[in-house]
């Protein structure tokens, strides 16, 4: 994993810690662990989505607004990286 990518994941981890209302500590999440399994509800995932948009000043296109995109720190990082590449 590149330095950039791990930084990306850490920024996303902060957003998740703030908005996902997980039953476990976000600090101990592995990057590939399911956020839904860790207790994130669909309503909380919306707040995570908005938080990630604010943190990176991006806007997810409609086709990315899926459960899969917000499955894990990794999947969110992948989506953010894709959008940043396009910019």
């Amino acid at each position, binding site marked *: 994993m590149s330095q950039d990518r791990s930084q990306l994941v850490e920024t996303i981890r902060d957003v998740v810690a703030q908005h996902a209302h997980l039953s476990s500590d976000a600090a101990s999440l592995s990057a590939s662990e399911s956020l839904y399994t860790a207790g994130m*509800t*669909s*309503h909380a*995932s*919306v707040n995570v*989505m*908005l938080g990630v948009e604010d943190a990176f000043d991006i806007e*997810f296109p*409609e086709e990315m*607004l*899926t*459960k899969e995109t*917000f499955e894990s720190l990794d999947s969110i990082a992948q989506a953010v990286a894709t959008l940043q590449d396009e910019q």
Partner: protein
Amino acid sequence: MTTEPDVLDAERAFEAELLQAQWLLPTLGAGVTGTGVAMEAVIQGLQRLARDRVARHLPRPGALQSVRFPPVNGRSMLERTDYVASFPQLLGTVDVFSGDTKDHRRLLADREAGLPWDGHLHTSDYALVPAACHPLYAWLSQVNAATVDGTVWTITGDCFRNEPSPDPMRLVSFRMLEFVLVGSPEQAVAHRTAMLELGQGLLAGLGLAVTVEGANDPFFGRAGVMLAKGQRAAELKFEITTEIYPGRNTAISSGNYHEDHFGAEFDLRTPDGSVAHSACFGFGLERIALALARTHGTDLRTWPESVRDLLGLDAA
């Protein structure tokens, strides 16, 4: 292919027909209508029929109880159900006046001058109820958890949704007859399945051509796109639809599995201490009555004998 102006024309023509026949009674609010003699007889018949069918035929794990809540609840209910997050475009709160005589004089002066006077009011702690089952969860959260045992609750409630439309199928204020189960996940899912089947049979028996379809709620904004996709993917919502306008199905009932959404927020627990799951099935009473008018006409005397019997219209 059906174009949009055609659809609007069809909606307006249907509305005109219903107003002419005094099925719908106009009020001073856009999208708000009263219910005329014939339509009300149909709605009362529908309620008797559905309640009777459920009492006789619905497989259920516990008791069947009927309760009633008014169309107004505490404003905090919109927060606790997440309605303010998911459907801000549909909600309505109640404004009130709580000034003194001087304030009242200012209000009247503005009114006399033809100015807006609503600025003299402020938002109260009351809100209009958007879904008939929401007050139930709020109430259950305040009583002994032992009642969250798979009882099926029957509620006819007035619902408010701020979406005025020329389509008589989309009223701002309407009634839902709901059958709600709060209990274990298995009980909730089974309830929804059984009610969809019962509802489909009941509506088909009234001569309506109905279809059961996966659906999503009209969640607001971009966040709503995500919620809607998730709701569809998890098959949480099904609608019973019928074709009112050519080429377009309209929902007349819906069955929803909420998972633990309400159970978690309102701390509803099953006897073994787990967070309760819930499911509701709602008959849209005005929509079903209007679908029947679309199918059988607005003159009840010409309706098929079997439908008149089922709805008890001869006694009406």
